[in-house]
């Protein structure tokens, strides 16, 4: 059996081992590979930067726990930027699991900036049926969320007393692992003219380029790379920045296996 035949029958666990090392070693030993900022992320940063202190931004946690490692760093980076600028944050979730994730995440980040729950930020909870929820918010936040997820009537939350509908919101940020931003574009942006930004898993990025090009979304922060770019823009390195070394090395390992696999394929074909 030639080396190329062996390559074809290579145990997949060896590939896993290389991938593990490709990710684990750069996490232990920092290389510090540079991160360049893409225009889509920069547009999100610039728009938030243009907001005034006291403006209100709606952050919707539209994802499950399975994609948390990708979503959490970008959510942290964006929230830090919002709180740095003294922008008020209203959180909600269009996925049940987003309720726990969103509340915990906003509370934790707000605590870094000594922000008060109910005055500087609020979390409303979860609503099923995305279309009805997004359309309903255009009429009244209180009708869609009579109470927050802890049972407090939304009308009694000081921050929410100044919010009737999208007219009082400067920006909607959907942190998601699926196509929920399409709903925000279709029903919040198209109908109520509220600006929309998406924080996406990298898998979903190609779906949303046309929405940015056509001006229906301001920009997007996609995957761990997008989060690392945002961390660079706010000058506060976090988990995403650390993960970028590992991401790059893992990509090199992947490229290496693709090249070896293709060479093995060609060599075996020639040998026959």
């Amino acid at each position, binding site marked *: 059996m030639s080396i190329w035949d062996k390559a074809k029958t290579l145990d997949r666990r060896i590939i896993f081992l290389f991938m593990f090392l490709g990710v684990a070693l750069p996490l232990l030993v920092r290389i510090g590979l540079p991160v360049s900022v893409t225009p889509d992320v920069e547009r999100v940063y610039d728009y938030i930067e243009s907001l005034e202190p006291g403006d209100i931004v709606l952050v919707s946690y539209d994802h499950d726990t399975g994609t948390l490692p990708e979503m959490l760093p970008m959510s942290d980076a964006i929230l830090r930027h919002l709180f740095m600028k003294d922008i008020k944050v209203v959180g909600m979730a269009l996925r049940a699991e987003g309720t726990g994730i969103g509340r915990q995440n906003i509370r934790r980040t707000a605590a870094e900036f000594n922000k008060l729950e109910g005055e500087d930020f609020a979390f409303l909870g979860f609503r099923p049926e995305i279309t009805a929820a997004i359309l309903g918010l255009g009429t009244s936040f209180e009708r869609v969320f009579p109470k927050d997820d802890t049972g407090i009537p939304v009308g009694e939350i000081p921050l929410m007393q100044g919010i009737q509908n999208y007219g009082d919101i400067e920006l909607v940020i959907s942190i998601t692992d699926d196509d929920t931003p399409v709903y925000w574009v279709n029903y919040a942006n198209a109908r109520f003219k509220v600006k929309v930004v998406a924080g996406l898993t990298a898998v979903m990025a190609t779906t949303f380029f*046309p929405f940015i090009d056509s001006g229906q979304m301001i920009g997007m922060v996609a995957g*761990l790379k997008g989060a690392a770019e945002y961390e660079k823009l706010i000058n506060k390195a976090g988990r995403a920045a650390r993960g970028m070394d590992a991401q790059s090395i893992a990509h090199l390992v992947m490229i290496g296996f693709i090249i070896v696999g293709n060479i093995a394929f060609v060599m075996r074909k020639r040998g026959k």
Partner: protein
Amino acid sequence: MDSDLICISIFTSEGISIWLAAILTLAIYSFLYKDNPVYRFAESLLIGISVGFLLVTTFDTTLLPKAFEPVGMGITGIFESGGINSIVIFIWILIPVVLGFLMFTRFVPKYAWMSRVALALYIGFGAGASIPANMQSYILRQIDATIRPFLNIDSFWTMVNAVIVLVGLISTLFYFFFSKEQKGAFGKITRLGTFYLMIFFGATFGYTVMARISLLIGRLTFLMKDWLGLIS
């Protein structure tokens, strides 16, 4: 990491959750070696907790405040005031709640037809809301975004970009035109469309690889930082 520190952290609520999460993460990754009962237990646990959480959250944050409490308040209103207004309000509350519960008749074959009433309304609302919205965002705005750059050409490269997008749009649309055999000049255009599609698939695959590795990075960061304390 200092072993005393591990012992102390295990006996705090945060420590217990970190250890549980770490053990379950390793249980899931054990599948990479081969399928085993530990992996299947962790997978079943995840599914069970997710469904349980969804049910409790939906009941607590939706059914209770949007259905049960309004109906309760409606009934209380009738008994307290007894006026025609309170009865009308109660009926308005009751209609959507009853329609919602009609969906559950699907579980009883004899009465399953009743769910069609609610389903018909739901589909009607869905179609009515989504068709014009999707037409706007997926078609009209995309045509606009393809043509508009030709009206604002300020450099050679702006024009090149606009042409690349226009050619890509037309050739890809031609590729999905199946009423004519893809031969001759038409075939060449569709072949160009195939190249555009391949570039799209390549980009999507690249992003997918990036996403999957990001998930691995997230979990390994958790294991090495929060659990083992190997990363500062």
